[in-house]
């Protein structure tokens, strides 16, 4: 009798016990002149291991600020961020950020940029080269390894930025509107690339965007932020099967829902 091996996905509805990241009542107040600006207030959410969460919100609602707190670049005014149950206090290679702007080292080639985080880790030159080659291939930049950042396009720069953090195998990948500056075509390519890499490497990703289509295309779950002060106003689970077609009706339905929630 022929039995068909069937991979049964653990029908995991990630609960609080799997939480890799816990954002607990985070508040951020900036002094502005003589007064204060409350940018984030009582932000509370969790992200499970392996999840791809998108955060959307209007411009200026505090998305970047939230991500900087998660990365450890900024300290929250109140509340805390836990990673594996431990409070995040400073930046570290377990939480890597792909910035909205170009943040590559302009005096290093693509290869040297990708290798940067590996230096000082006690790897041999050969090991470093193999690792770098592997990740350059993953983001499709093998032929460009000797180029300087100023000689490659914006989309390629973001691929390098992705490769240089993926190579560190961070537990969490923080992405701050990484594809916002790209044209529509390139942006979709980059989204597909990100999904492929996510499937292969199963990172946990927190992806900030203000592009609704991008959120629906990528996310397991979308968090919608409100403005002034920024709060998580609504959560939406995206149950669409992958690969997702942007022109399908259910896709557009969801996008419509999110768009209404943002308004």
């Amino acid at each position, binding site marked *: 009798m022929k039995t068909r091996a069937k991979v049964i996905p653990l029908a995991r509805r990630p609960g609080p016990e799997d939480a890799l990241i816990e954002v607990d009542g985070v508040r951020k107040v900036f002094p502005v002149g003589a007064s204060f600006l409350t940018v984030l207030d009582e932000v509370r959410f969790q992200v499970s291991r392996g999840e791809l969460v998108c955060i959307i919100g209007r411009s200026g609602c505090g998305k970047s600020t939230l991500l900087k707190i998660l*990365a450890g670049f900024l300290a929250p005014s109140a509340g805390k961020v836990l990673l594996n149950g431990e409070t995040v206090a400073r930046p570290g290679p377990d939480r890597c*950020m792909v910035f909205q702007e170009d943040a590559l*080292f*302009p005096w290093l080639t693509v290869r040297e940029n990708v290798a940067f985080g590996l230096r000082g880790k006690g790897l041999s030159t050969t090991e470093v080269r193999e690792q770098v080659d592997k990740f350059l291939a993953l983001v499709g930049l093998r032929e460009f390894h000797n180029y300087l950042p100023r000689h490659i396009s914006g989309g390629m720069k973001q691929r390098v930025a992705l490769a240089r953090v993926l190579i560190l195998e961070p537990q969490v990948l923080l992405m701050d509107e990484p594809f916002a500056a790209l044209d529509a075509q390139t942006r979709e390519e980059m989204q597909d690339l990100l999904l492929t890499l996510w499937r292969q490497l199963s990172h946990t990703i927190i992806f900030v965007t203000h592009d609704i289509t991008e959120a629906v295309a990528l996310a397991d779950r979308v968090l919608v932020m409100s403005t002034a002060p920024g709060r998580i106003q609504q959560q939406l689970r995206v149950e669409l099967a992958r690969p997702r077609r942007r022109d399908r009706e259910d896709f557009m339905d969801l996008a419509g829902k999110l768009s209404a929630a943002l308004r």
Partner: protein
Amino acid sequence: MWKKEKYFNGPLILPWIIPCLGILLWIIVSKTEVVPGYLLPRPLEIGKAGYSYIFGEAGGGPYAGRFLADLGSSTVRVGCGFALAVLLGLPLGIASGRLPYVHELFSNSINGLRAVPGISWLPLAMIWFGIGMKTTVFLVALAAFFPIYLNSAAGATQVNPLLLQAGAMMGVGRVRGTFAILLPAAMPHIITGLRLGLGISWAYLVLGELSGVPNGLGAIIMDARMLGRTDFIVVGIIVIAVIGRVSDRLLTVLLRSCFKSARRLN
């Protein structure tokens, strides 16, 4: 691309146009005898004087064959003074560009001292150090310190904070962050500071050597004045101009061969 080819010979010829015009003008002026020869010697006499200074046999005329020895002692003075300025100015500048406390501590005093013309230090330096090596090194170091300090500080201030954040998130510590991110990112400013500093070093070398040192490129200028040899004054001026330019090129080449960031940024 076509533009580059069209002007292909430009970079080779352009830098020499002004020196050549200068010499031409000089020849015309001295031929017409508008200016008497003891004020402005003829180019030919300068050529002879320069030849004897550089290639002449020692004893075959005034200053004959002294060039190498003078160059050597002047270079040592400039080298020591400049090195001192770099050793102090670069770290202090970088630190005050990044650390507000260091900046608060030093910026007032340094900017105050900067306003004092170097020549007013000369009498004090002569009392402190006597005539010769030490005074000259002191003046050179003092003068070169300011551009190096100010430009390193400006470079360190203007480093894109995103690069430092990127480093921190990749697990780069303070020390490596300084050498692998901060200094390379500030490199264009640092280079500017070093070049300005080296340039002014030669100026203050002459000042230091004017005070009565027996040897050195500045010393022959002063000595020639006392002997009334205008031709050797001009030779001294030209030699210093050439040496200044050559040392500037050497500095740039040295930095470019040592640091990726010096090669690849700009």
